[in-house]
C-alpha cells in the first residue's frame, strides 16, 4: 500500500491538529450563541455576544477550513505527485508558522475585546491595527504554502513534459490559483486602507471601496472552502464505492469554470446598498449565476458515478444502484449526506443572489441558515468524512470498528442538529428576524415576539439544534484525538487505512485544460470587466471618508 513520506505526514498532521483546536473553540462559541439568542443565557459583563460571534466566524470559517484544506492538499499532492522536496517542505513549514503567527495575533485581539468587528470587519468600525496585521500575516502565510505546493507541481511538470497532471494535483492547483487571486482584494483593502487608518497614519477610510474590496474576496472565499470538498467528491468518493472518475475532462472543466466565475461576483453581497449602480449589480448577478453550470456538472458526475458503480455490482432497474452503494462505509455515507445538504444549500444560494429577491432575505437569519447548509454541512461534513480516514492514514493507526460506529453517530447527530437549526433559521429569516444580533425582543414588539412562537420558527428549536451540533462536535473531537494518539497501530497491509484515490481516464482529456495562463487570463479579464468602472467610480466620486468608531 502506498505511503507518503514521514516528513509530509508530520506536516499534514500538524495542520489537522490546529484545525481541530479551532473547531473545538469555534463550536463552543456557537453553542453559547444559540443560548444567548433565546434568552436562556446571559454572559458575564466582561464577555460580549459580538466578541463570541466574531470568534465563531473567524475560528470556523477561516481557521478550521484553511488548516484542514492545507492538510488535505499537502497529503494529496504528496500522494499523487510524490514526496515534497526539501525546499517545498521547508517553505510549507514557513507558511504554516507565518499563518499561525497571524492567527494567534488576530485571536489575541478578538479575545482582548479589541476587534469585535466580525470577520467581515465592516469599516468604519475600527478594530485595533494589530487585528488587521494578524489577518494580513495569515493571508501571506497561506500564500507561502500555496506557492510551495505550486512549485512542487511545476517540478513534476518539468519531469513529465507534455503529460497531464493527475486529477487531484490539477484540482489542487486550480484551488490555489483561485485562493491567490481572491486574496488580492482583501490584501489591498487591509494594507492600503485598514492598517494605515487603524494606526492613525490616515484620518479617514473610503467605506464603500473597502466593502467592495472585501466582497471581491468574500465570495470566492466560499469557493476556496467548497473546491477541496469537490475534490473529495470527484476523486475520493468514486474509489470508495468501487468506481472510476466519471469523466476526467468534465471534472477539470468544472474546476476551470470555478476559477472564471467565482471572483467577479462580489456585488451580490452588496445588492441592497448604495454606491454601486444597478447595472453593475445586475452584471455581477449574471456572472454569479454562471457557477451554477459547474455545479450542475458536478451533480451529474456524482450520480453518474453512483449509478455506474451500482450497475457494475449487479444493480438492475432505474434506482437499483442506490441500494448497492456502500452505506455501511462511513467514509461514503458522511460525504453522501454532505452532498445531499448541498441541494437545498445551492438552491438557497440562487435565491440570495437573485437581485431584487435579495431584499427579502438580506441580513436576516435566512442567510445564517443558508451558510450552515453550505459551508457548515456540505463542506464541513465532507472534511469530517475525510478526517475519518486521513488521520489514521497519516498516523499509521487502525480505523477501529468502534471508532467507525462512533463516526456514524457523529455524522447522524450533526445532520439532525443542522436540520433543526438551519430550518428554523431559514423560517425565522423569512419572518424578518435579523442575523448578527444578540437576544432582543425589540422592547416586546409583537412582531418580534412571534419569532418565539412557532414550532420550527422558534429560537428554542434553533438552540436545540445547536446543542445537538455541539455534542456531535465533541464526539468528533474525541474521534480525532483517539485516531491521533490511541488507536492501535496498523501492522499488516489489511489493517492499514488507504488513501482512496480513484482512477481517472486521461485519454479523452484535451491538453488546453491544463494551460493555466489561458484561464488566468480570462479570469483577470472578467474581473477587470466587472470591477474596473464601478471601483474607479467609488474612488473618483467618493464622499469624504469616515473616521473610525469603536461602538462595542
Amino acid at each position, binding site marked *: 500500500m502506498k505511503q507518503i513520506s514521514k516528513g509530509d505526514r508530520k506536516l499534514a498532521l500538524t495542520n489537522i491538529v490546529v484545525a481541530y483546536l479551532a473547531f473545538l473553540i469555534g463550536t463552543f462559541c456557537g453553542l453559547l450563541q444559540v443560548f444567548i439568542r433565546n434568552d436562556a443565557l446571559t454572559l458575564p459583563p466582561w464577555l460580549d455576544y459580538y466578541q463570541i460571534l466574531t470568534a465563531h466566524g473567524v475560528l470556523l470559517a477561516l481557521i478550521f477550513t484553511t488548516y484542514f484544506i492545507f492538510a488535505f492538499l499537502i497529503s494529496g499532492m504528496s500522494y499523487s505527485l510524490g514526496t515534497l522536496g526539501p525546499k517545498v517542505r521547508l517553505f510549507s513549514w514557513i507558511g504554516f508558522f507565518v499563518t499561525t503567527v497571524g492567527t494567534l495575533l488576530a485571536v489575541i485581539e478578538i479575545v482582548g475585546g479589541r476587534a469585535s468587528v466580525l470577520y467581515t470587519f465592516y469599516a468604519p468600525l475600527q478594530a485595533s491595527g494589530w487585528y488587521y496585521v494578524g489577518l494580513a500575516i495569515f493571508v501571506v502565510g497561506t500564500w507561502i504554502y500555496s506557492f510551495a505546493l505550486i512549485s512542487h507541481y511545476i517540478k513534476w511538470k518539468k519531469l513529465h513534459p507534455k503529460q497531464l497532471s493527475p486529477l487531484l494535483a490539477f484540482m489542487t492547483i486550480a484551488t490555489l490559483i483561485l485562493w491567490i487571486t481572491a486574496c488580492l482584494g482583501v490584501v489591498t483593502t487591509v494594507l492600503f486602507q485598514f492598517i494605515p487608518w487603524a494606526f492613525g497614519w490616515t484620518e479617514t477610510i473610503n467605506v464603500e471601496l473597502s466593502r467592495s474590496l472585501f466582497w471581491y474576496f468574500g465570495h470566492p472565499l466560499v469557493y476556496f472552502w467548497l473546491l477541496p470538498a469537490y475534490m473529495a467528491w470527484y476523486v475520493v468518493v468514486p474509489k470508495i464505492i468501487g468506481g472510476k472518475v466519471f469523466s476526467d475532462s*468534465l471534472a477539470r472543466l468544472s474546476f476551470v469554470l470555478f476559477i472564471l466565475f467565482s471572483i467577479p461576483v462580489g456585488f451580490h453581497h452588496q445588492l441592497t446598498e448604495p454606491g454601486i449602480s444597478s447595472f453593475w449589480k445586475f452584471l455581477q*448577478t449574471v456572472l454569479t449565476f454562471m457557477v451554477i453550470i459547474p455545479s450542475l456538472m458536478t451533480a451529474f458526475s456524482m450520480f453518474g458515478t453512483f449509478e455506474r458503480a451500482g450497475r457494475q455490482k449487479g444493480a438492475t432497474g432505474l434506482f437499483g444502484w442506490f441500494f448497492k452503494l456502500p452505506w455501511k462505509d462511513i467514509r461514503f455515507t458522511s460525504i453522501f449526506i454532505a452532498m445531499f445538504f448541498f441541494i437545498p444549500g445551492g438552491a438557497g444560494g440562487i435565491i440570495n443572489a437573485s437581485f*431584487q429577491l435579495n431584499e427579502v432575505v438580506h*441580513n436576516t437569519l435566512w442567510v445564517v441558515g443558508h451558510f450552515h447548509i453550505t459551508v457548515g454541512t456540505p463542506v464541513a461534513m465532507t472534511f469530517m468524512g475525510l478526517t475519518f480516514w486521513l488521520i489514521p492514514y497519516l498516523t499509521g493507526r487502525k480505523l477501529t470498528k468502534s471508532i467507525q460506529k462512533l463516526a456514524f453517530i457523529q455524522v447522524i447527530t450533526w445532520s439532525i442538529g443542522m436540520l433543526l437549526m438551519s430550518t428554523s433559521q431559514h423560517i425565522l429569516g423569512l419572518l424578518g428576524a435579523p442575523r448578527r444580533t444578540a437576544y432582543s425582543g*425589540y422592547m416586546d*414588539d409583537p412582531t418580534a415576539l412571534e419569532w418565539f412562537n412557532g414550532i420550527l420558527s422558534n429560537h428554542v428549536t434553533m438552540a436545540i439544534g445547536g446543542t445537538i451540533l455541539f455534542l456531535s462536535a465533541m464526539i468528533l473531537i474525541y474521534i480525532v484525538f483517539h485516531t491521533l494518539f490511541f488507536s492501535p497501530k496498523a501492522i499488516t497491509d489489511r489493517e492499514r487505512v488507504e488513501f482512496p484515490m480513484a482512477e481517472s481516464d486521461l485519454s479523452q482529456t484535451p491538453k488546453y485544460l491544463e494551460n493555466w495562463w489561458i484561464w488566468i487570463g480570462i479570469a483577470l479579464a472578467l474581473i477587470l470587466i466587472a470591477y474596473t468602472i464601478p471601483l474607479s467610480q467609488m474612488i473618483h466620486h467618493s*464622499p469624504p471618508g469616515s473616521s473610525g468608531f469603536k*461602538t462595542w
Partner: protein
Amino acid sequence: MHIHKFEKIWLGFGIISLVLFLSIIGVTAFAFNHHPSGGMETIDPDKVEQTAPFDNPGVYQIDEDTYEVIIVAKAFGYDPPEIKIPKGKKVIFKVASTDVTHSFSIVNTNVNMMVVPGQINTKEYTFEKTGQYLVLCNEYCGTGHHFMKTTIEVID
C-alpha cells in the same frame, strides 16, 4: 472532449432555465423598474445633520400621492423617532448614517436598506395595509445593535 448524451440534455436544461431566470430578473429590473434599494448620491458622513434634507428628518408630502421620509440612522437609533404614513401612497425612503454602517429594514416588507456612511440609500415602497411595522437594524453596528429599532405607523 467527450460529453455523455444525458449530460448534454441535463446541462442544456440547466442553461435554458438559467437564461430564463436571468431574463425574468432583468426584465422586471430594467423594464418595470424593480431594483433593490440603492442610489449614487453621496454625503459628508461628518456633516449629515447639517446637510439638507437630513438636517430635518421627518415625513414630507411631495404631491397628492407621494411622500418622502428622511431618516438619519445612528448608533443605536433612528431620527425621527415617530413615523406616520398613510397607506396606499408612494413613499420614498431616504436614509443616511452619521457614524457606522447600519440598516433600515422594515419587517414584513421588501424594504431592506443598507445604510453605508457617506452614501444616501433610496427606496420606494407603498404600504397596502395599516398597522404598526417594526423597523430594525440588521447590520451589526456595535453593543447596542440589537436594541436599534423604531416603528412605522401606517394609517388610513
